[in-house]
């Protein structure tokens, strides 16, 4: 029994070489920037990096959980903007604050449920189902809530804007607090709950999990619902900080790419079954520091996208070199 648990635990550790490489690269970049850019290694800059990456980390928690279960949620950013738009619409209509929050949560949970249902019960592959639902959700909410407009400017008295502009504790802003809470909740879910165990089992070997009687279908529903909820939190953080609900972030695609990049760079393989919150933290740290550094060096958006692509290629190639796939780690239907 002890040897079985030991090998299971070892299995969860394997493939984390990428994580160490990424950690090393992050430290190297931090050192480089501290030396070459005045004012980088200050508490103020750390706070800036944290607040700029809050939404990214929140989304990565949801996406990380989905990817560990061997799924993929390409509709995450669409749900994020749809949730923020719903929140704005209900608060403009004059409902009370708890009602607005409750209704938005219900809407977003329904969207996640729909995704999960398509994947678990209709058995459409996750990538295709969420790709399609992304377009449907973005289109429906843009036309139903925004009447065809792309942008919704939020008034400064909007409850989300007011709440997320405050500091929860001295030095701790509300978006950063939301980020920490989402991170901790996801960690607890993955580590200590049955849902978390089923998630890892599904990612490791879906058929085996199903055959030994784990309730994979309800688990799928809950995983996608949780991802949708994290998307709502991220959407409110972004809407509050920028003062707008912007459907072009969906069409743009760069935020979704960054979220997947964070998860993959952190060491969670797209075929699932391995990884945890530390991987997400490491991946997010690299992307956050990289983004901050590129802005400080005044690199154009095109150069920034190019660098991010190069970083991804190098990371995946390095991982492949140090972790060649063998019959044990290779799984059928690999992404």
């Amino acid at each position, binding site marked *: 029994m002890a040897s079985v648990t030991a090998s299971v635990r070892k299995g969860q550790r394997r493939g984390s070489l990428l994580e160490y490489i990424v950690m090393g690269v992050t430290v190297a970049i931090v050192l480089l920037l501290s030396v070459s*850019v*005045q*004012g*980088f290694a*200050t508490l*103020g*800059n750390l706070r*800036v990096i944290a*607040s*700029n990456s809050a939404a990214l980390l929140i989304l990565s928690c949801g996406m990380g959980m989905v990817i560990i279960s061997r799924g993929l949620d390409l509709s995450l950013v669409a749900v994020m903007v749809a949730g923020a738009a719903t929140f704005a619409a209900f608060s403009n209509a004059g409902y009370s604050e708890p009602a607005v929050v409750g209704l938005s949560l219900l809407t977003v949970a329904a969207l996640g449920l729909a995704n999960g249902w398509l994947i678990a019960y209709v058995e459409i592959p996750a990538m295709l189902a969420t790709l399609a639902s992304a377009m449907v959700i973005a289109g429906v909410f*843009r036309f139903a809530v*925004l009447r*065809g*407009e*792309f*942008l919704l*400017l939020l*008034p*400064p008295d909007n409850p989300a804007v007011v709440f997320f*502009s405050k500091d929860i504790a001295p030095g701790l802003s509300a978006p950063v607090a939301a980020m920490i809470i989402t991170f901790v909740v996801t960690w607890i879910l993955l580590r200590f709950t049955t849902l978390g165990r089923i998630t890892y089992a599904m990612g490791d070997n879906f058929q085996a999990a199903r055959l030994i009687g784990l309730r994979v279908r309800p688990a799928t529903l809950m995983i996608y619902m949780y991802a949708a909820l994290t998307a709502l939190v991220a959407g409110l953080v*972004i809407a509050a*900080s*920028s*003062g*707008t609900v*912007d459907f*072009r*972030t969906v*069409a*743009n695609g*760069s935020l979704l790419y960054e979220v997947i990049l964070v998860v993959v760079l952190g060491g969670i393989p797209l075929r699932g079954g391995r990884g945890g919150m530390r991987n997400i933290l490491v991946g997010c740290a690299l992307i956050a520091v990289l*983004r*901050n550094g590129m*802005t*400080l060096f*005044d*690199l*154009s*958006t095109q150069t920034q996208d190019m660098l991010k692509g190069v970083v991804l290629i190098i990371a995946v190639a390095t991982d492949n070199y140090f972790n060649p796939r063998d019959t044990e780690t290779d799984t059928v239907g690999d992404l």
Partner: protein
Amino acid sequence: MLSRVKSNLINIATGITFCAALALGAGGAQADPNLKGKKVIFVPIAAGLTLTEAWSRRVKQHADYYGYSFDIRDPAFKMDAMSELLAKAISDKPDVLIVHNPTVQLLTRQIKEAESKGIRVVQINLQSNQPSTAYTGANWTRIGTEIAEDIVKECGAGSGKSGEVSIIPGQLTAADSVMLNQAAFKVFAAHPEIKVVSNQASDWEPEKARQITTTVLQQHPNLCAIFGHWDVHTMGAGKAVKDAGLEGKVIVYATGGGDDKTCQAVEDGILNRVWSYDADGQGRDLADLVDIVLQGGSAMDHSMLNIDSPLTVIKLGPDYDKHLCFKL
């Protein structure tokens, strides 16, 4: 008695002649521009933006009045979709094609093709490198120069400020950003105390502008001015300035269509000085220009007809009025 009849007849004849002249004169002075059944197609960068909605509204009013058809083809920000929609629009052989250019280079070939096929092309607000029948819109060089000169006055030598400026274009290759930056940098070249510390494009997104500005403010807390190339995304930058507690110390400049949200932002202190080209007025200019071109109007030497939009500077102060902005 005969003389009485003769004078009566002369009176009546004069009267009839006079009335006839009046009636003919009244009827002949006004021409009827028969524009019924003509076809106008508009390909904007995206419908669903206040700018393009404001323009479309005015052109539709004129189209309904004169009886010509007005059709909007919406690429929703996708560049390749825009080229395809333009190709389809050209094959539909409209009388006038209204084009909104995302970059100076993208649609040059298609505009040339349309003009050669006899389709009159009117460019709105963002010029291409390829001239066509007519252009109406903001004069970006003028806006860039005026804003840069204002920045020099506020932040340059003798102002006691640091002279540091952050520029936030939408996209570095977009027509307006190219011209605004060219004009601004020309002014700044003559004033070496002005330092442009950041020139990062925000993809027209307020959130990206906010993140860029938060980072820049962290590194340059003595930043004097921010020059955003579109008022909507500059609002994100303005929010970052407010969140950093630097409201009033950093002057936020922007340019845009001047709808009521812009005035609200100026009142809230998120934007400080906005060079508005009044999208609603531009819509009327565009509609008038389309009517003129449909009636055969063009420059006598076949160069491009050019109607620059008048500018208003919206800022708090004695000249501020909510009605400087329009409501869609």
